[in-house]
């Protein structure tokens, strides 16, 4: 079989060539530099770096906080999507538009804003401190930042599903004697679950790599509040290129596995159901 079906539409050679060239120059060749750099290390040395206690602590923090944030968004994302799609109330449209704010707001801006809110004398930091809860410069702060960053994902994956959901489905369930809770649990929830999980996976993937919004609110204490991307930066600033790259490779592998999982999830959620 030929590489390409002959077509009367012109410009394949030019656009395909440019696309692949640009992709190679900007993305693929630079990314392959990580492999090149790590290959300077032996396997043992690589393993030693990526399993050092400080690195492992950073993975636990990055993955743990991202997962926590993603799960918070799972619950609240479904709620927000539900309320925005199903109910009419003042400022609904504005809130709807505002949901994308974490996508649009530069991460550094989000970082200093969240830190200011949750600092000891901040709008929320002060009342929380009087309850004995400290957010800024703790692990809780990291969870707050990652919840903020991941907020739009679940909402925006669930929203179109809810909008397209046939109301007759619910009416059928009601006519068959199901209560509102049963209808939600047995009819609606299964319908939106694949999309919601896709959103969770996207939020998690984004959270693991997040840097700007976290470093201001995290205490950045090694072993306690140091996220993996920050560890990479720290190693770079010490000119430990090989060490930084080794940890970057771990992150890349995790990202690609997540990407694969998200693709599978999206296939699942777009598969015909019911």
């Amino acid at each position: 079989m030929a590489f390409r079906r002959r077509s009367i539409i012109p410009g394949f050679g030019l656009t395909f060539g440019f696309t692949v060239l640009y992709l190679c120059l900007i993305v693929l060749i630079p990314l392959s530099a990580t492999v090149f750099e790590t290959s300077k290390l032996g396997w043992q040395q690589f393993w030693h770096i990526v399993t050092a206690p400080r690195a492992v602590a950073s993975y636990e923090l990055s993955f743990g906080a991202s997962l926590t944030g993603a799960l918070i968004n799972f619950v609240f994302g479904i709620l927000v999507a539900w309320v925005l799609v199903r109910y009419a109330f003042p400022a609904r449209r504005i809130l709807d538009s505002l949901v994308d704010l974490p996508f649009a707001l530069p991460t550094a801006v989000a970082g200093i804003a969240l830190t200011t809110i949750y600092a000891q004398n901040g709008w929320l930091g002060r009342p929380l401190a009087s309850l004995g809860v400290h957010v800024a410069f703790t692990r809780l702060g990291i969870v707050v930042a990652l919840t903020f960053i991941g907020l739009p994902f679940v909402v925006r994956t669930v929203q179109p599903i809810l909008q397209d959901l046939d109301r007759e489905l619910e009416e059928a369930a009601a006519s068959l004697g199901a209560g509102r809770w049963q209808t939600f649990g047995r009819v609606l929830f299964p319908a939106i679950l694949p999309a919601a999980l896709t959103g969770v996976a996207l939020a998690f993937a984004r959270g693991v790599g997040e840097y700007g919004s976290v470093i201001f609110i995290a205490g950045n204490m090694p072993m306690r509040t140091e996220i993996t991307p920050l560890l990479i930066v720290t190693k770079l600033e010490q000119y430990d290129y090989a060490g930084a790259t080794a940890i970057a490779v771990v992150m890349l592998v995790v990202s690609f596995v997540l990407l694969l999982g998200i693709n599978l999830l999206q296939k699942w959620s777009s598969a015909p159901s019911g």
Partner: protein
Amino acid sequence: MASRYHQGGNVLSITVANVTKRFGTFTALDDVSLEISAGRLVALLGPSGSGKTTLLRIIAGLEFAESGAIRFDGQDISDRAAGERRVGFVFQHYALFRHMTVFENVAFGLRVRPRGERPTRQQIRDRVGDLLDLIQLRSQAGRYPSQLSGGQRQRVALARALAVEPRVLLLDEPFGALDAKVRQELRRWLRQLHDDVGVTSVFVTHDQEEALEVADQVAVMNQGRIVQVGTPDEVYNHPANSFVYNFLGNVNLFHGRVDNGMTYINQDATGDLIFARPHALEITRNANGPNHFRATTKHINAAGPLVKIEVITEWGAPVHIEMAQERFRDLALNKGEEVYIIPRDLAIFEATHGDFTPSR
């Protein structure tokens, strides 16, 4: 045959010579040849997957054949780009430019001409105006395709194709996406338009009624081959093989054999193919002569000009029969009645290799 809508564009003949086209391992066209005389309106008729649209797109230059040639008036144009062939192509889903008004859609082909050949603004306005009159949509000139009905879009697509004074007009399932009533109207209109404009036209359809009603000539296609070419009368009344017979209208199928001028119907599915159109089977109460079989009426639909009756033969097969209202009233048939069926006209195809060929 120049007309107001088709100034000076010479009318030409189309030759399809031994064209073969494959998509991967699928052979869409298998050594197809076809001769279309100048000024004709020809239908490519066949079921989906028969290769009719592929053939049309190859004539237009939208697809490329692996082998074979397309000639316009004897001149090989196989290697010419679609834009250089001066064909008007009407797409199945119209492919109107959605961001342009009706006027701009029709004017497009004139506006994109190289500077030297481009008509003046006034000429463009006049010509588009004429075409909009032709399709009776002048009042809609400023509208966008999304604001038009399906039938209107179809007419705009036609006008757009005619604007460049094509030497050949090609239409892909021109009525496929329209509802029954609009279809009827547009069919008659297309026939009229062809008579007015006189440009050699080819259209693709899977609807035998449409092909038989509109076209001068019908090319019946099946599995990448042209099975028969002829006038509607020829293909309907003298089908080349069982496929054509079967495809052109409703039929009842029997199996059996012909011996000494007698037709024997087998009750199992063996032997030659015997076809009978629903109107060629007669229902009577008393059988005289040897040529008949018994059946029981199962369902009667008397709505419409013809009464449609489904009977179950004595060997348990369903058979469809049509008769005039008058005859139905005379008979005063009831559901569940035992009757005799007399075949008036049978088409018998002997079981040779491949398709069955006529033996009459």
